[in-house]
């Protein structure tokens, strides 16, 4: 029984006994100016219920008209995913009672998606994995609910809910993979790489800002396990709204461990929706899907069919941007990086950031060094994506320039970045406020050098006697005395000069 109390199994152990099968459903809010079926603005973060009209509120008599730009973006996403584009298809009503849609139905697509049968190749550790795409269809997003009462702000235990319909009706593209088999222990990495690649592709098309933290790209992760050697798939769970690339990977890993624990103890996996928790990296049970949902789909009577003209589709194909994988190879050549370094940058989500930092005036090597070094370390410490760090490519470029011009050394530059991340303002402001400029004027530095020589007569004698290498100890003392703010090269020159060996 599923009531058996079992803990999750270790990941390696789980993979020895079971093979995972994945499925990913990704929702992308399109970046159109207006909603899917009405002229309300789609701007994020507006005051509640200020971007609504009779159409998206489902008021009687209101009629939808499809947004041409949303149809074009969807076809472009389909083409970029190597899909076939339907010659003819319709919208459908998905009927359900849930107050996130004021109409009691969502306009979606059912058995006639706009795009179908495609694939996306992703690279993991130098190996290419082909993820097959089942369908790409267009629908409308739902409103946002605040759950009041209960302890956690979750729907469970809430006394009532408050709904903001600003998001209701924003065009939403759903991209569904076919079951992904044979990834074996790389399943979590494949899931992450797929969403990363998809996100870059959609961003390159300009169809969405694909900000996972703002919910404009959301991922549902389906996982099932089958015993090794079996060809019969197990029961899957669906983990909803996994909101960062890192979480996609963690959710897959956590579900593999959890399901293996259940199966190994003789239990059975329940087909259900699960919720991912960012804090613990685990999933918990949501609503059970044991009773099949009956949405009573039927063709949307208020919208006529879409029949994309082949000339139109061909024109959209010519407008597709350079594919992200091709672009990466080009940048790799331009930056002179090894496959390994480039893959590391890709996995860290650093490519766009480094590119933007170079565009803002930093040398390529410096841009890469800061993002992949100090900033990657800080992102990792805080368990956030690089892009979520509160520092812009322009600010990183400025820090790199200050180092290149000799105003900062690397140690001080790290402190400047720390200040920027702490919200202390632009790099120049942080330098000034924290007094971080390198001390290289001979007056101030000379005083420190004199003091250090006086404090270390033995070392000074050795240097006078010709042991120039011993100067390093005195330079270290100068750096310590100035808390790292001295220009080390100039300090060394001054020491040797004072001791008469320059």
């Amino acid at each position, binding site marked *: 029984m599923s009531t058996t109390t079992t803990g999750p199994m270790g990941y390696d152990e789980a993979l020895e006994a079971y093979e995972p099968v994945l499925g990913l459903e990704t929702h992308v809010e399109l970046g*159109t*100016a*207006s909603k899917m079926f*009405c*002229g*309300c*603005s789609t701007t994020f973060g507006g*005051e*509640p*219920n*200020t*971007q*609504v*009209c*009779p159409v998206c*509120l489902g*008021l009687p008599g209101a009629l939808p*008209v*499809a*947004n*041409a*730009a*949303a*149809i074009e973006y969807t076809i472009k996403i389909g083409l970029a995913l190597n899909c076939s584009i339907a010659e*003819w298809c*319709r919208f459908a009503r998905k*009927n359900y*009672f*849930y*107050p996130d849609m*004021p109409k009691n139905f969502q306009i979606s697509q059912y058995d006639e998606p706009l795009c179908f049968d495609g694939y996306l190749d992703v690279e993991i550790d130098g190996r290419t994995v082909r993820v097959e795409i089942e369908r790409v269809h267009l629908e409308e997003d739902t409103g946002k*609910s*605040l*759950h*009041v009462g209960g302890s956690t702000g979750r*729907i*469970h*235990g*809430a*006394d*009532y*809910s*408050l*709904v*903001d*319909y600003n998001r209701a009706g924003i065009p939403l593209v759903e991209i569904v993979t076919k079951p992904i088999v044979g990834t074996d222990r790389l399943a979590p990495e494949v899931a992450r790489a797929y969403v990363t690649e998809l996100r870059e592709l959609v961003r390159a098309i300009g169809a969405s800002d694909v900000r996972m933290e703002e919910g404009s790209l959301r991922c549902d992760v389906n996982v099932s396990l089958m015993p090794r050697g079996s060809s019969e798939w197990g029961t899957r769970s669906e983990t909803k709204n996994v909101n960062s690339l890192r979480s996609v990977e963690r959710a897959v890993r956590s579900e593999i461990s959890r399901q293996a624990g259940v199966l190994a103890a003789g239990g059975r996996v329940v087909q259900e929706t699960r919720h991912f928790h960012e804090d613990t990296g685990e999933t918990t049970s949501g*609503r059970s899907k044991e009773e099949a949902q*009956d949405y*009573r789909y*039927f*063709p949307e*009577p208020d*919208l*006529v*069919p*879409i*029949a*994309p*003209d082949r000339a139109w589709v061909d024109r959209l194909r010519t407008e597709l941007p350079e594919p992200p994988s091709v672009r990466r190879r080009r940048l790799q050549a331009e930056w002179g990086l090894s496959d390994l370094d480039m893959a590391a940058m890709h996995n860290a989500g650093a490519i766009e950031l480094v590119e933007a930092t170079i565009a803002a005036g930093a040398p390529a090597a410096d841009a890469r060094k800061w993002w992949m070094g100090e900033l990657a370390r800080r992102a990792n410490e805080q368990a956030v994506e690089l892009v979520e760090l509160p520092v812009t490519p322009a600010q990183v470029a400025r820090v790199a320039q200050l180092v290149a011009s000799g105003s900062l050394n690397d140690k001080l530059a790290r402190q400047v970045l720390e200040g920027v991340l702490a919200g202390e303002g632009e790099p120049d402001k942080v330098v000034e406020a924290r007094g971080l400029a390198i001390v290289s004027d001979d007056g101030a530095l000379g005083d420190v050098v004199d003091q250090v020589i006086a404090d270390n007569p033995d070392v000074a004698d050795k240097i006078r006697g010709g042991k120039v290498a011993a100067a390093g100890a005195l330079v270290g003392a100068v750096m310590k005395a100035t808390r790292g703010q001295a220009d080390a090269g100039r300090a060394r020159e001054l020491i040797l000069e004072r001791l008469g060996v320059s």
Partner: protein
Amino acid sequence: MSAITRDEVAHLARLSRLALGEEELDHLAGQLDDIISAVARVREVAADDIPPSSHALPLVNVFRADGIRPCLSREDALSQAPATEGDRFKVPRILDEEA
């Protein structure tokens, strides 16, 4: 053979959140069966070369350009709501306790 069974009507009523009593189900199942059987006569004239259609007019690709139009004011938007709180629509508890 009936076009729709009483059980199917009960199922649809539940999906539609209609609380129908036993007598109402008996009554409506018969009526719906008559209606569906009447409409089903279309099949007698629709040969294989006539595809099913969902729209009466032979129109496709009716789109609008992606432009912003004025929205309702929030006051107007909320004016018809049975309950509001904090500029939002207030709705009853969504999930029952056991869910």
